[in-house]
């Protein structure tokens, strides 16, 4: 059993940067990564804005030193890049020195290749290698291979937009129970025609820059990203004299049990998730210094989440902001990239602004943090909610 769950490494690739340093730089300089879609051929190109990663698949392939025969989906490419950065950052040179697992999250999996070759698969032998890469677990198997994780506990979580938060949660529990000494946790999702059209039919895609918690918010921008953390037990931290970036202090998962896609008006599931996480952390609401909100900028989410925040914290909620104006909503990866942002906030004692906000929401009086703010932070709460009523909260802290 391990008392603390130490975070010793992190890696990220998103629309605002190809690594942790670039992401931080963009966050504090208010540089957003939202643009018109360039890598996917879609009739909606003039109706939507997205958070795309600059690298092409060929560039990612060469960054990973893969030969052209590989059958990586973009989800796998992105995941491998971010996971490798995390492991390197944690100073791990021998991955098998400790019992190391991988918990990855994805919702898209290999859909980017499936949608490209759906009918072509039947005739063209050259593209058939991608067929077996469709299932969500395949990207995780490839990331494990890239990290050299063998004969170990490797699994994939897919709970829509809360997936990566749940991967962090499971990883923390596996360390706590002593089942693993070390675990790489996070998520990856690439852009796809499938998700663009899915969210389009739900009419929750904004035609302009997404504006979380704004009264006139028009919906979300889809994004693509991957991010991973390395979690290690007290034992490994001590034995290896590791620098600890932060700790996973609390986590909570609950189901809204309200609707397959919509959140309940009063945020029942979100409230439960935040309360559970506080309970596990043994914190009171006032112990939270900053909330990195899910804040997708859809009418439904921001109302439901805002009300849930008030239910847990009262009208005097701590500073909160959504960073989705920077990155777009990166679906299964969102809980991962926002975990990295939460840790960057803790490390640098800074709260990232909730960009594009103009008008206070009518339904409540809490207002997100609008300007970059320096504040001594001890704890950060990160929320992630998804389809299927899935609500997750993770709390990160500076101290064990």
């Amino acid at each position, binding site marked *: 059993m391990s008392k603390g769950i130490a975070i010793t490494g992190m890696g990220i690739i998103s629309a605002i940067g190809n690594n942790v340093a670039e992401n931080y730089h963009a966050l504090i300089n208010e540089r957003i990564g939202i643009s018109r879609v360039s890598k996917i051929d*879609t*009739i*909606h190109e003039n109706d939507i804005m997205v958070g795309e990663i600059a690298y092409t698949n060929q560039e990612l392939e060469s960054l990973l030193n893969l030969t052209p025969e590989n059958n990586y989906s973009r989800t796998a490419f992105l995941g491998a890049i971010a996971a490798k950065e995390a492991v390197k950052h944690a100073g791990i040179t021998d991955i098998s020195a400790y019992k190391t697992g991988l918990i990855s999250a*994805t*919702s898209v*999996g290999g*859909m980017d290749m499936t*949608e490209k070759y*759906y*009918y072509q*698969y*039947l005739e063209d032998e050259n593209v*058939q290698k991608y*067929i*077996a890469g469709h*299932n*969500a*677990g*395949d990207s*995780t*198997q490839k990331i*494990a*291979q890239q990290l050299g994780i*063998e*004969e*170990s*506990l*490797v*699994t*994939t*979580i*897919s*709970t*829509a937009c809360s997936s990566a938060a749940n991967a962090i949660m*499971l990883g923390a*529990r*596996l360390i706590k*129970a002593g*089942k693993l000494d070390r675990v790489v946790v996070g998520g990856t999702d690439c852009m796809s*025609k*499938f998700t663009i*059209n*899915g969210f*389009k*039919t*739900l009419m929750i895609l904004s035609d302009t820059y997404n504006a979380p918690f704004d009264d006139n918010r028009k919906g979300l921008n889809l994004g693509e990203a991957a991010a991973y953390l390395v979690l290690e037990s007290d034992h490994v931290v001590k034995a290896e004299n590791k620098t600890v970036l932060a700790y996973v202090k609390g986590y909570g*998962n*609950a*189901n*809204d*049990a*309200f609707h*397959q*896609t919509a959140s309940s008006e009063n945020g029942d599931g979100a409230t*439960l998730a935040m309360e559970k996480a506080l309970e596990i952390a043994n914190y009171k609401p006032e112990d939270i210094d900053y909330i990195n909100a899910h804040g997708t900028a859809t009418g439904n989410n921001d109302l439901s989440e805002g009300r849930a925040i008030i239910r847990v914290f009262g009208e005097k909620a701590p500073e909160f902001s959504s960073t989705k104006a920077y990155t777009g909503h990166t679906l299964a990866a969102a809980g991962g990239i926002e975990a990295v942002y939460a840790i960057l906030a803790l490390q640098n004692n800074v709260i990232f602004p909730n960009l594009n906000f103009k008008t206070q929401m009518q339904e409540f009086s809490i207002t997100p943090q609008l300007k970059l703010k320096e504040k001594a932070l001890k704890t950060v709460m990160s929320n992630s909610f*998804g*389809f*299927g*009523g*899935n609500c997750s909260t993770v709390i990160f802290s500076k101290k064990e």
Partner: protein
Amino acid sequence: MEKVYINSFGSVSAQNTEYDSSFLKDIISYNDTTIPAINPIYKDFIPPAAARRMAKGVKMGIVASKLALQKANLNNVDAIITGTGMGCLHDSEKFLSAIIDNDEQYLTPTPFIQSTHNTVGGQIALEIQCKGYNFTYVHGSNSFESALLDAKLQLELNEAKNILIGGVDELAKHTVLLNKTINHIKKEPVESAELLETNTKGAIFGEGANFFVVSNEKQDSTLAVVDGLEIYNTLEVDSITDKAREFLKEHNLNVSEIDTLILGNNGDEEFDIYYNTLTSGDFKNTQQMVYKPWIGECYTASSFGLLLAANILKTKTVPETFQLNAIIPSQYKTILLYNQYRGENHSFTLLRQC
């Protein structure tokens, strides 16, 4: 640490598994390349209006979970943990082909909404109004095992009392076609009893839903104790024997103490060697059973193996048809399960009588 009991199961499969009275009494033999699950009378479990919007996977999942809850005499649980290798394939195909065929126009949101991997887990939560922990694992042939592992972790540490876990996968037309193209599904139909002797590439695909109530409290309905579970992303054929020994040793067991070995052979000449290494090696004097020839292969087929094992420990009888060798043990106390798909995502599960 608390023990982990299997208190009930509910199953929709290509065999008679829905009701206790007919449970695996007459084994149905198939002669095809895909084996669909037998449709239960859905309206006994799901309001028809709701059922019309649901694909088979979701419906099978709801029926299996309701059966499991009924048999455990529960209305609700502390957590719902689902495993699915391919997720809601039918709706994924429906939405994707509509995008391609109609050039991204005239789309309706329903198939997209229902295509999400956690649809089954979410729908079950909605049905029984369970606001507790709800996870969905999607990791190939360890999707269901991940769900069991997660539940075991919570029950052992007393973080929950009753957890509903399950494995569900559905067949879908285009995916079947694609898997035939790359020889993951056999080209020619095979009789169930002949499947393991075909010496051809690929498997016979199937579908189904097997849900269980696992608990750290024993009750009258309890079938077995889950004593051990390990999952491995990779394993070489050469190391499978050592891994099996290592797993048994961790549970203070030797090979002779295993009464029955339940295996995931699917008749694929390329990958059954993993199973054959065990059956012709360390376990050659152990009773061996297989089930995939009669229900088909899918990423969560191993959840059927678990209910088979649990049922053997409770009833002390085995469906003879599933026996791979002629050995009959003197008792049914300890069962080992081993599964993998295409040489990846291996698992050992250890069940004991309680």
